């Protein structure tokens, strides 16, 4: 491999300081828009923390169908134990943005940091939630309050239909019936694990592809990404005009293969494609007790798009 070219660098590459540009984010059914210089710093199945270079900026936790009682549980979950005070007054733009919710404002202040937000309940959907904006000892600055008002205006934790995802360089819409059960975000890898009954769907995004493929071929990287045995032979193909590989484990239709799957060794079919324009590898794998329909998995994998 030739020596890497010197990396172009300018101070402008530092995380943008402007709050003018908002980017959409979707996470397990939650939709919002946030400033470009806020990044998702921590995720839970129904939890999101956005942070900027100075630390936590905005936090949201929600629970569909939790009911009105879920407000206090959500409030306790996000605020320092015994520190939260209720009954504060929220900025007028925040109240306008949250007109569809019942509110229980909260605030806390500890060790030079503070939070201002509210526990929420939406009667039409039964969703309980809590949000807070972080600030210094004096509370969130007026600038942050204005930004949070814009974030709240676009906030929707009750999007109908299967959950969709748009973050960390990946967009994906889960197939009907599949719910998010696990996720991983580590440097180079973002993966989502869904379950529907006894079927498990794994979605993975690996980057940068040029570095991964410099060491191993696409088949080997794909096999390692989904933890398949070394005996699984990759089948090169082309999907959506880009190179891809299929990996099939225990996909036979014979009685012996069927018996093996029923006895606790489920079959697995995976497809991974190389998206050279985005320098990413995108893959999907379904684990099931029956042979997997390739067309179905190819369609699911096609929903996995690089941002």
């Amino acid at each position, binding site marked *: 491999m030739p020596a890497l070219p010197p990396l172009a660098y300018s101070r402008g*590459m530092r*995380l943008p300081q402007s709050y003018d540009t908002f980017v959409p984010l979707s996470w397990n059914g939650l939709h919002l828009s946030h400033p470009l210089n806020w*990044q998702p710093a921590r995720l839970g199945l129904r939890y999101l923390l956005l942070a900027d270079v100075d630390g936590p900026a905005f936090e949201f936790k929600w629970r569909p169908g939790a009911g009105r009682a879920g407000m206090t549980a959500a409030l306790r979950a996000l605020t320092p134990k015994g520190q939260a005070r209720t009954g504060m007054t929220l900025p007028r733009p925040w109240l306008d943005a949250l007109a569809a919710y019942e509110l229980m404002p909260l605030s806390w202040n500890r060790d030079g940091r503070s939070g201002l937000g509210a526990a929420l309940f939406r009667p039409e959907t039964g969703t309980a939630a809590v949000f807070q904006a972080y600030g210094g000892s004096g509370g969130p600055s007026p600038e942050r309050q204005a930004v949070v008002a814009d974030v709240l205006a676009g906030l929707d934790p009750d999007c109908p239909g299967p959950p969709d995802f748009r973050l960390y*360089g990946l967009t994906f819409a889960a197939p009907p019936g599949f719910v998010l059960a696990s996720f991983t975000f580590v*440097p180079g890898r973002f993966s989502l694990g869904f379950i529907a009954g006894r079927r498990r769907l794994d979605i993975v995004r690996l980057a940068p592809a040029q570095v991964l493929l410099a060491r191993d071929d696409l088949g080997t990287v794909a096999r390692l990404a989904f933890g398949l045995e070394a005996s699984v032979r990759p089948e090169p193909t082309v999907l959506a005009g880009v190179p891809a590989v299929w990996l099939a484990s225990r996909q036979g239709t014979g009685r012996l293969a069927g018996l093996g799957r029923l006895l606790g060794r489920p079959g697995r079919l995976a497809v991974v494609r190389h998206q050279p324009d985005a320098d990413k590898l995108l893959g999907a794998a379904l684990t099931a007790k029956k042979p997997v329909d390739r067309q179905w998995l190819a369609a699911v994998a096609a929903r996995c798009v690089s941002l």
Partner: protein
Amino acid sequence: MVPVKNRDLNEEITAEGLVRLSLPVGVRPALAGLARRFGLWDGRPLRKTVELDAMGTAVWQLLDGRRSAGEVAAALAERYRLDPREAELAVAQFLRLLGRRGAIAVAEGRKG
């Protein structure tokens, strides 16, 4: 926080364009005494060689004693089209590893 390279390490570029680092290794005095007594060590500094991968090389080449870890992460994200948060995590993890091996130290960044 600005990562600064250890002045005692040697670096070379391999034929593949990757960085190879040679680092001095600290030896516990008790072990050093024993090794000397049994003629296993002549007292010269021991060195350990580490070869970086492509991304490690890219990060290493960005460490100039002036750029902060955040600036290095931003440059890496640009170079490899990575998510900014992902680049930050990757750089933080890599710098932690280099620090543990004594290849870098962290200095206070410039003000303003």
